[in-house]
């Protein structure tokens, strides 16, 4: 395995390590970064899986809300109330310039909040099938939040303080009427979708930055 820190060789080195040495890797500092690399990959995979799950869930839920919510070009106004849901949309340069910590923290905060709102959705929804799908999605989303927390701790970053549990987020009154609630639900699903797209890119970026260089260094140290 080459000893240069370039991306493709780095990936090759990482693969070598994974295939040949994984059981034998000693518990050095190296394993933490190695662990982080795997966690990041897992988190990335989880976002892709959730994205796929969301497509089915959103389809079913929007059909439940009825037209025009399930029409493809539907674009209702985002009322002041809807600003409660954290937005994934961000300036490109700003996004590029994010530190790893800030990037991970933004993801963590967003999904924790989104999970809360989604859980709030659960009790009032009509059909049994929809409730099951929502419940399943919430569990998977919880898994994502934990996965992000895992990455942060393996990289030594502190977890951002935030809404930890299920209770309704503070200062968010229930929508004053049923139609506005439907619009809130629509934006929640939209924002969830945008976040999952964005997270895939976030974790792809992190994947490239974290494991290979470190692993290559470790392998140098062990005389490969």
């Amino acid at each position, binding site marked *: 395995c080459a000893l240069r820190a370039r991306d493709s060789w780095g990936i090759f080195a990482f693969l070598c390590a994974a295939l040949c040495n994984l059981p034998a890797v000693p518990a050095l500092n190296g394993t933490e970064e190695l662990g982080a690399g795997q966690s990041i990959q897992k988190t990335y995979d989880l976002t892709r899986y959730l994205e796929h799950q969301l497509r089915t869930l959103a389809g079913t839920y929007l*059909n*439940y*809300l*009825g*037209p*025009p*919510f399930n*029409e493809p070009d539907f674009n*209702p*106004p*985002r*009322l*002041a*109330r809807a600003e409660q849901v954290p937005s994934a949309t961000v300036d490109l340069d700003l996004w590029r310039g994010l530190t790893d910590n800030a990037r991970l923290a933004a993801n963590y905060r967003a999904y924790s909040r989104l999970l809360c709102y989604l859980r709030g959705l659960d009790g009032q929804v*009509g*059909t*049994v099938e929809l409730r099951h799908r929502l419940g399943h999605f919430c569990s998977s989303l919880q898994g994502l939040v934990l996965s992000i927390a895992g990455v942060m701790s393996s990289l030594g970053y502190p977890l951002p303080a935030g809404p930890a549990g299920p209770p309704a987020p503070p200062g968010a009154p229930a929508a004053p*009427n*049923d*139609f*506005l609630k*439907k*619009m809130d639900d629509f934006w929640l699903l939209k924002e969830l979708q945008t976040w999952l797209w964005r997270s895939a890119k976030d974790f792809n970026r992190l994947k490239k930055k974290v494991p290979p260089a470190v692993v290559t260094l470790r392998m140098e140290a062990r005389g490969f």
Partner: protein
Amino acid sequence: MPALLPLLLLCLRLLRAEPPAYPAVISPQDPTLLIGSSLTATCTVSADLRLRAQDLYWTLNGRRLPAASYTALGPTTLSVALARLNGSRQQSGDNLVCHSRDGGILAGSCLYVGLPPEKPVNISCWSKNMKDLTCTWAPGTEGETFLHTNYTLKYKLRWYGRDNTCQEYHTAGPYSCHIPKDLALFTPYEIWVEASNRLGVAVSDVVMLDILDVVTTDPPSDVHVSRVGDLEDQLSVRWSSPPALKDFLFQAKYQIQYRVEDSSEWKVVDDVGNQTSCRLAGLRPGTVYFVQVRCNPFGIYGSKKAGIWSDWSNPTAASTPRSERTAGGCDPKGGEQNTTLRRELKQFFGWVKKHSYGCSNLSIKLYDQWRVWLQKSHKTRNQVGKEPFTLLSAHCGAVDPPVSPSPRVASKQGPALSAGSTRR
């Protein structure tokens, strides 16, 4: 210019992208209505927006409503008249929306149109091995499905006890509930279902039942189907009684159903009684059959009522022996004749061995050898029946065949037979 100033201020205000909290208000907001009723709704636009009534339009579930049904009630208020409403398209409510001319949504109202519930009907329950109780019911009317209707199953012990509410719903379909524990035997239960939606409440009739009268169990285990010796038309079925109820005193009835592999018609054997084996007769030889068994634990603890049949066991397959009379798939056209003939020949050779001298090495093998030779020499099959006697004579000397007319005796050896005509 001074005229431009307010316009500029307005533009700045809009550019700041602060949407008004509620651009318009619809009345009535989220009403509940009976099917067939009419509704007049109004949309009042916020003064900030500088929109007038003629700039607005309505949609219902995404479809634009005809302008003929609109009436301007004021400079910023437009109303729409809806007549003879159908049941809601979705349980979350029909979406009645007030739009500005460019299509933007100003406000919306969810219309809940349906019928009040009627008494749920057809309550039926069963208990699996006396451990739990599952009940199903049917909604009183189809109209309830337009609105979200909540069903609650309640039960109490007759003569005493408080009302209990079932918690686990949808275990056996959308209108079902499961009570997993704390069920008493020997005292009847009173069971009923309450249905409620936005338009009203309805309570079913009370059903009274004793757990012991509605017991069902698992299907019989270890179902084995096997042949009965060489009998072509019979199969023997054996099973074990369901283990869960083995400690309880009950009589158990069984039922068997079977079908041929490529048919979908099941034949049922009803009078199996409480044995754990049965013989199926009158079957087709050489056929694959699928067999299932189920159990009814009636008479538990002396209950007089029939219990409830369990599910059928998983199908078990077995085949009846293939008869030699049956035309096989492998032999060509002469096959049927062939097997009959072979049997006869075997019997004949056996007899010959007993009753003649010098034919000790006579056997069906010799016949087979001759057959092979026959094929090679392209003789037709019609001659088959007569040839063996000719062959016999060649090997054994004169033998009086027991039944057939005396064949012509050839003095030459086997292979030379081809030269002679042995046609009869």
